[in-house]
């Protein structure tokens, strides 16, 4: 069992992700934007963070920057949610500590579970 923080502004999506990851036996918290994510992060201390790059209020890249994830949280696994069309953002996210990415529109819940479990094993 791992502690997973889902940061995704679209309710229908984060609920679906929450459902499948709970089934896998993980402990889940959800944040609807970057600001919320930073607050939850402090006391939840997740093992893995699923992070949408484009969100209102605060996007994923800024979350990684604020956390200084690459330096201060080397143990944290980070998977970013994105779309094919923002390769530059993916590159930036990887520089700031992300380890994998998921193309939201082209992944099913099963795909998500597989990526999460593989990332946790790394």
């Amino acid at each position: 069992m791992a502690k997973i923080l889902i940061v995704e502004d679209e309710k229908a999506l984060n609920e679906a992700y929450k459902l499948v990851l709970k089934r896998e036996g993980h402990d889940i918290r959800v944040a609807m934007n970057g600001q919320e994510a930073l607050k939850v992060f402090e006391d939840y201390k997740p093992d893995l963070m699923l992070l949408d790059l484009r969100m209102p209020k605060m996007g994923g890249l800024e979350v990684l920057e604020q956390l200084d994830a690459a330096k201060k949280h080397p143990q944290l696994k980070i998977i970013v949610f994105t779309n094919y069309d923002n390769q530059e953002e993916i590159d930036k996210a990887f520089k700031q500590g992300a380890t994998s990415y998921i193309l939201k529109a082209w992944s099913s819940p099963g795909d998500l579970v597989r990526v999460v479990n593989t990332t946790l094993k790394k």
Partner: protein
Amino acid sequence: MDVFYKPMPRHLVELVPGMVTLFNVKTSKYTYVNKAIYKVLGYKPHDLIEGGSEFTHSIVHPDDLQFVLEKDSEALRQADRDKIYRTGSDPISSLEFRMRHKKGHYVWMHTDCIVYDRDEEGRLDHVLYIANDISERIESERKLRQRTEDLVDINKSKDEFVAIASHQLRTPATAVKQYLGLLLEGYAEPLLPDQRSFLEKAFESNERQLHIVDDMLRVAQLDLEKMNLRPVRTDIGGLVKDAAAALQGRLKTRRQTLKLSLPKTSAQAKVDPERLQMVIENLLENASNYSASGKEIELKLRHTAKKIEISVCDAGVGINRDDYPKLFQKFSRIANTRTNSVSGTGLGLYFSAKIVELHGGRIKVESAPGKGSTFTIMLPI
């Protein structure tokens, strides 16, 4: 030296619609002005003859005056120094500038200066200024420029609209995909056969919808010039194989076979591998769509020291020559009764051609209606 002098046929000069003035370079006075000045600038010929160049300079638009004085005196100086006989058809200067009409408004003039005669030493004596009102032309040019700018703006806001709309559409379509996925992947109760088959149909439509959204976004980005290539040194043979592999499933369902021809030596080039692969996949997808089931499609890579050619050859319906220009236009689908069932956004080839162009190459089309088509990506190395 011959002295050029020929009396002007004044009765004819009076008839021309443009202003004609004969100007004495040495005294800076006009010795003759035709009647057209009334019509063009509202003054009488006498006003110029009396006032000389001082008068004409006083009615040149202040913003144009410096430029006119510089260009005019430079041309006169040059012609004076040249001492070369020049014919009337060869102006020593041609200027466009504004002059104030007697009523106060400005008129755009095109003025040619022509050597009229020289003195015994060959020095410049008289020049002719022939001036025409070009306000209408300037105005229509201005309107055209404005219209072009407006159209560019409208087009840009349309591209932005498409980009935003596609983003907005993608989110709910992605959510639909997740929930269909939950049902199909067994996160709910086990499915009855009919339920599964209905959901699979919904899933397929959802995939298509997402494809269209992605295509629209790609094109909007291209049009907004937001797409930058990310070129890296790439083994093109490997790329071609990857594209072929990606299309295997689709070809299999259509019972089509793919013949892959690769050169013995490896072809390396600096390309954006992800985007170039999309282009090859797009050409393969088209080849499959426009070929009957059971047909063969050939994917061939050839290269020399200077160029790379990747061609996709099908034995499909082919394309009429008249339709070639339409192929690479946005949203263009060639009408063809046999292929009415083909689905797509009509953006694939537009996108492909743009990507290849960004690589400095182009896509060549060869086709025979009823026999098949070959699309070749030609890339410089």
